[in-house]
């Protein structure tokens, strides 16, 4: 610090040198007239202030001050002076838009309240890309991230946009003059208007080049499709008539396909004689594998071989019996089968070849997915050019190569040498750190934009909030920097000006550009009246018929590529992306970090997944400590010359022998929340953009890792009536009591269905609404979308890694995952272990506690069951939780004194206690601890203080709003109007909600179905949530 700095007490002192010196010696500028005051004794004596008076005033003063200090905090809310036409306080507005952050893309509806977006919902009228995953919904929170860049900067110093523009254009010109390249490094960016705009840019700067680089590359898939189907895009699969899916390590319920397939998949899983069969051959236990009917764990090299064998078997040339069986299954289904593969160009291509060969009806040849444009070759050329000094400027958008590129260090050195480096990142990341110019762009919720994600559909992005910070849209930056008519640059004036003509020669904004682009190029082709109409819908459909090149295919190089893998003893690695974190773009999002992984149910971390046999060989264990929390050994991982140290190991049932899994997207170096998460950067192992890596050596390290896992018991311990499942044959041929037995209570009259016996006086629940929620275990894929929707709707707090480890997760809705055990009560009985023998019971339970090595998986969403005879309600001493007239079990937060008796007495353990204040508490430094972050909170739901119990309310604020709206409009509520946040978000319609007093409603029909049952019904709680039995194909291959 500069200690010589001068401080002054006002301008006179600064200006008057003498005065300053004079004052310097004195504490008070003027003498205090003590003498005058005290010397006038007569006057003092004449005053009537006695000692008593003094004490009185003193007392009053103290009391007054103390009382004033007791005043509650004042929160000022400022009403609109002039109310905007479109905004009515308390009524949400919805805007159609397109979510795109470089990894995910979806057509969405944004719910805004008083001008701020508070929730992302699905744009249900969009024909494609309407599923909203957890990540898509959670991207809302990154809008309110207080770590976002607040404005433009050059070399870390804040500047104005004008200065920045001047700086950049000057250097761009120089680069152009020097003949070096200007590279816009970008993730897949399927925006047609931006492409056009960049084309304009490249007219002014002819050396400009667009390099598409995706952290998680789809390049090999694009190449394979190009070679087989003749178009560099991803094939589009339509599963509505598919009866068999054979997937070779393709995580198609995850990110394998940029458009999620889960909706149709779940529909095809509806139990019927033609129900979809799903065979998954994979090494890691993926979300997709967890949903499969048959799952074959094989290590990556064998998965590839199996694919080749199946191809050969289809053509009659394989000796592998398993492959023959799979091939036979494919042959049997013929065009109703489809094969997916992932991992290499060869695998992808061969799968396409099989689909072509069997003339699979699922593979649509007139439609392609265009959302991904990864081009690894272009990126490699860029690296080469960079090293050879052919590049003069690098502009980076939506991508973070210094984090995600396997050889990040070389790239860092090369980038440092470049004269002009511009980052458009919305917050600081590993790449922006070395960038000279920061031109932060808007969050997608503040931006204009468009996308062309699939043949036949164009979508629009519109801003739903004023930019929060001094940021600027990427396209606006490009437009400003490519202002035509300046200097001696050569460009095609005609074509460029055509886009500018609406703006009278001024620099158009991107909005003008986008609109004129759409009005010229897109709207004429579509059957849409105006731009505003398409903006209202969020998308337009255009009839398109892409031309197909029929290519002569020789499968032999692909087959060779698959089989030519040397058998090594070393472990093989399958890199994967987690449901919550994806490729790591949103690593700083606390909602996503705290979303438990659907399979391992851990949060805030990545780890090596290892099979129990391999773990045993390495001497690695997972164990639980006294408070239940899980600990595990760590390993040092060696691959070639890459060493990653101290990676925790999670022993994963279902992990293929000889293989390990590791999730991408962790090990970030920037961002508060991302830093709280523990993990390693697995991109360092992502050599050649290949998710399969070989030659992995693991070595046990001394380190012990503390997992933050919220489910510590993996099996049902024989309690199969909790998450019920049956096989299709039994379901179709046997009566209900065989596969979905009603639970009965033994009484003196014999066994009676549990809902016929009660201690309580029956209430008449036929009046008004009576809400029920249905959970279809067959349709639930475990994707976690509902959990994030619940977070956003109900202001559920984030508690952080340490609290999760203490099993203090606050999720109102959780998705339990159970593995099957090798043994059941029946099979153990054959071994002589039985419940009938008191002394063999401990051993029996020991068997049931362990999951098998290749288990079947079942997901079970559990939220408050809203019991009609709720155990929680009777035990609350202050009646803070009571039953609502519409079937909900309600919490009066203000009345709760926090005895937690209700939570103890809840058989479903869905009640969540506020152990601390989670809002405005520095110990929980997440979004609720800053003003910006709190803008995401739903104003319809209060924030709970510490010491108060909370839980699922069946989104009572939503149902009440629906009821009131109908009442105002003097009509009955329509069935489909009743929704909760989770049912709205569920991409597979596994969750549905409605009024069972309405005989016509969907929920009433569901309740009557044979598959429905209530959780732990025998306790007599009479829940208002019911489940539908899961039905699988039982045949093993």
């Amino acid at each position, binding site marked *: 610090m500069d200690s010589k700095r001068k401080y002054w007490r006002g301008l006179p002192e600064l200006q008057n040198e003498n005065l300053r010196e004079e004052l310097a010696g004195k504490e008070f500028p003027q003498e205090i007239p003590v003498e005058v005051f005290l010397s006038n004794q007569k006057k003092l004596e004449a005053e009537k202030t006695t000692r008593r008076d003094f004490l009185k005033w003193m007392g009053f003063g103290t009391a007054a001050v103390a009382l004033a200090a007791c005043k509650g905090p004042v929160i000022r809310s400022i009403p609109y002076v002039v109310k905007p036409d479109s905004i009515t306080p308390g009524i949400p507005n919805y805007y159609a838009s397109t979510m795109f952050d470089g990894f995910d893309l979806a057509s969405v509806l944004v719910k805004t309240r008083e001008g701020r977006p508070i929730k992302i919902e699905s744009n249900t009228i969009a024909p494609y890309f309407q599923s909203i995953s957890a990540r898509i919904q959670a991207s809302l929170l990154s809008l309110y991230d207080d770590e976002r860049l607040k404005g433009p900067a050059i070399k870390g110093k804040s500047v104005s946009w004008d200065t920045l523009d001047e700086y950049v254009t000057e250097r761009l010109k120089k680069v152009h003059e020097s003949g070096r390249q200007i590279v816009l490094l970008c993730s897949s960016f399927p925006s047609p208007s931006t492409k056009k705009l960049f084309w304009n840019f490249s007219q002014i700067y002819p050396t400009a080049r667009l390099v598409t680089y995706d952290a998680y590359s789809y390049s090999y898939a694009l190449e394979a499709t190009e070679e087989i189907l003749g178009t560099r895009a991803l094939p589009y699969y339509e599963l509505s008539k598919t009866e068999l899916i054979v997937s070779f390590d393709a995580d198609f319920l995850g990110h394998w396909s940029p458009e999620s397939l889960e909706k149709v998949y779940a529909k095809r899983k509806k139990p019927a004689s033609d129900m979809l069969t799903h065979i998954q051959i994979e090494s890691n236990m993926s979300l997709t594998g967890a949903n499969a009917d048959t799952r074959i764990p094989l290590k990556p090299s064998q998965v590839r071989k199996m694919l080749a064998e199946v191809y050969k078997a289809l053509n009659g040339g394989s000796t592998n019996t398993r492959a023959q069986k799979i091939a036979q299954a494919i042959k049997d289904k013929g065009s109703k089968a489809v094969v997916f593969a992932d991992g290499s160009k060869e695998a992808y291509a061969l799968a396409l070849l099989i689909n072509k060969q069997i003339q699979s009806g699922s593979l649509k040849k007139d439609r392609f997915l265009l959302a991904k444009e990864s081009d690894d070759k272009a990126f490699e050329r860029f690296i080469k050019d960079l090293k050879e000094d052919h590049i003069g400027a690098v502009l980076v958008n939506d991508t973070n190569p210094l984090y995600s590129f396997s050889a990040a260090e070389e790239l860092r050195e090369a980038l440092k040498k470049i004269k002009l480096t511009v980052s458009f990142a919305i917050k600081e990341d590993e790449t922006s750190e070395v960038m000279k110019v920061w031109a932060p762009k808007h969050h997608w919720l503040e931006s204009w934009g468009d996308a062309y994600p699939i043949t036949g559909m164009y979508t629009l992005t519109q801003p739903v909030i004023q930019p929060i910070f001094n940021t600027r849209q990427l396209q606006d930056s490009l437009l400003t920097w490519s202002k035509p008519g300046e200097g001696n640059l050569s460009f095609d004036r005609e074509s460029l000006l055509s886009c500018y003509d609406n703006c009278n020669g001024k620099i158009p904004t991107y909005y003008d550009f986008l609109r004129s682009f759409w009005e010229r190029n897109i709207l004429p082709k579509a059957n849409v009246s105006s731009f505003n109409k398409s903006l209202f819908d969020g998308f337009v459909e255009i009839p398109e018929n892409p031309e197909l090149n029929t290519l002569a295919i020789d499968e032999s190089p692909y087959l060779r590529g698959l089989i030519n893998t040397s058998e090594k003893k070393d472990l093989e690695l399958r890199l994967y992306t987690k449901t919550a974190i994806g490729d790591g773009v949103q690593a700083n999002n606390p909602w996503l970090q705290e979303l438990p992984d659907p399979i391992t149910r851990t949060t805030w971390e990545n780890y090596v997944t290892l099979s129990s046999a391999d773990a045993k060989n390495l001497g690695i264990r997972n164990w639980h*400590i006294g408070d239940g929390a899980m600990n595990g050994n760590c390993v040092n991982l060696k691959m070639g010359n890459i060493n990653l140290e101290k990676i925790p190991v999670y022993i994963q049932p279902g992990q293929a022998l000889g293989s390990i899994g590791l999730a991408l997207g962790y090990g970030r170096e920037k961002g508060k929340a991302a830093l709280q998460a523990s993990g390693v950067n697995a991109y360092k192992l992502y050599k050649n953009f290949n998710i399969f890596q070989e030659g992995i050596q693991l070595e046990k390290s001394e380190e012990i890792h503390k997992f933050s896992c919220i489910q510590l018991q993996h099996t049902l311990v024989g309690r199969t009536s909790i998450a019920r499942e049956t096989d299709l044959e039994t379901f179709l041929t046997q009566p209900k009591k065989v596969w979905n037995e009603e639970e009965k209570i033994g009484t003196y009259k014999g066994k009676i269905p549990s809902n016929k016996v009660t201690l309580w006086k029956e209430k008449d629940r036929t009046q008004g609404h009576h809400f029920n929620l249905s959970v279809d275990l067959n349709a639930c894929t475990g994707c976690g979308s509902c959990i994030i929707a619940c977070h956003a709707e109900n202001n559920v707090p984030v508690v952080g890694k340490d609290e999760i480890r203490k099993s203090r997760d606050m999720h109102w809705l959780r998705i339990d995952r159970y593995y099957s055990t090798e043994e059941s009560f029946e099979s153990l009985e054959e071994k002589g272990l039985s419940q009938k023998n008191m002394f063999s019971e401990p051993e029996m339970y020991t068997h049931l506690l362990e999951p098998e090595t290749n288990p079947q998986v079942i997901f079970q969403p559990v939220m408050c069951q809203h019991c009609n005879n709720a155990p929680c309600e009777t035990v609350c001493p202050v009646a803070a939780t009571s039953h609502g007239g519409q079937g909900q079990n309600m919490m009066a937060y203000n009345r709760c004194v926090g005895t937690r008796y209700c939570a103890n007495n809840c058989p479903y353990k869905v009640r969540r206690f506020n152990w601390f204040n989670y809002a405005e508490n520095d110990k929980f430094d997440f979004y609720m601890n800053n003003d910006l972050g709190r803008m995401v909170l739903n104003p319809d739901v209060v924030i709970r203080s510490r010491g108060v119990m909370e839980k699922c309310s069946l989104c009572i604020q939503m149902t009440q709003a629906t009821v009131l709206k109908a009442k105002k409009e003097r009509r009955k509520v329509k069935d489909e109007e009743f929704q909760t946040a989770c049912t709205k978000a569920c991409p597979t319609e596994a969750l549905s909600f409605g009024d069972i007093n309405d005989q016509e409603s969907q929920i009433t029909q569901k309740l009557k179905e044979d598959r429905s049952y209530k959780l*732990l019904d025998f306790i007599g709680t009479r829940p208002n949530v019911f489940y539908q039995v899961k039905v699988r194909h039982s045949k093993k291959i």
Partner: protein
Amino acid sequence: MSGHYESPIREPLILGNKTYHDITQDVARPIESKAGKLWWITFGTALMALVWGMGCILYTIGTGIGVWGLNRTVNWAWDITNFVWWVGIGHAGTLISAVLLLFRQKWRLSINRSAEAMTIFAVVQAGLFPIIHMGRPWDAYWVLPIPNQFGTLWPNFNSPLLWDVFAISTYFSVSTVFWFMGLIPDFAMIRDRVTKPIQKKIYSILSFGWGGKAKHWQRFEELSLVLAGLCTPLVFSVHTIVSFDFATSVIKGWHSTVFPPYFVAGAIFSGFAMVQTLLGVARKVLHLEDYITQKHIEYMNIVIVVTGGMVAVAYITEFILAWYSGSPFEDFTYFSPGAATGPFWWAFWALIICNVLLPQALWFKCVRRSFFWSYVISIFINIGMWFERFDIIVLNLSHDYLPSTWTGFLPSFVDIGIFIGTNGFFFVLYLLYARTFPVIAQAELKTIMKSSSEKYKKMRDEQGNH
């Protein structure tokens, strides 16, 4: 044969040929003399523990229940364990003074005062926990059915926690009145002896102008009988109601009709153990060897071994019924690796060893009559009974219906600190009591002295029966 026959095996309840005056002297000695070094050391330690516990309580109230080791599955652990433990301890006093009074058991007279003091101090500790275990203890008064600003907002009369509030407060107030009433003649005795004016003033207020008149004694006796009648059902009701906290719930291992008698027996079991523990010390420190004799110890040990047996039968009943039910839920609670070999095996075996196995030694007369061994066993029973409540609460909660939510529990330093703090508080109260209150109900004790015939019997013993 003239005269009555006197059983030679009945031992006297007071040893050492005491006269009335000797008893007065012995009882007044701790009050009139200066405290010894040992007292100061124990008091200092207890006070430190109390201050530490207060610190932990304030930290909890200031920060949130999260500073304890609880989690979403185990929402009660040390808090309610301590609560039930202290309530249980608070059972022996009233049982001794009320039930034994009704049964005319004169041996209670040497120990009833201290046992009742223990009861009251233990209930004070117990009463702390329901308040501090709340998330928002400043709203604790909402559980009381008092007029309020919310209109006609009542507490929930269905809730066993509310029943607890009534049961404990009734028990506490009636026990206190009963205890205090018994103290009045003794306070009067001290009032008459002390010389310092302040002491005199205090004891004369406390003695309510007792004059020792026949009318006073008559009222005293009548009120004793009435209060004893009132207290007796309370002895059974309090722990029955505490057991309802668990028995009326739906959680496996809690939901059990055997709980009320089982809890009452357990409470008497633990209460007597605590009386043994405290008197074992008091006997030495306050030189009451002549008043608390082997006979007393033996009687108490008999109560312990009987109630201990009832508790053991209750354990076995629970096991058998769990197995007999055939429900995989019920069954698992007792037979899984969860109980005896699982994460809480130590708590399970602590319970079995301390409560079931060790007390069986009391079947032997030599152990039963040994001050040392009954002291040791009483300590183990105290520990075992704490673990019994811990097992009931934590084991059953941690492995309940849905396996997905199973967890464990580890106490935090705050949990431990508060428990230590209540022990400190208890001993602070007890030590202050020992220095200022007559620790033996001397007025009543004097009624069982065999002053008239004792001398001649002695002569007879010496000179043979002629």
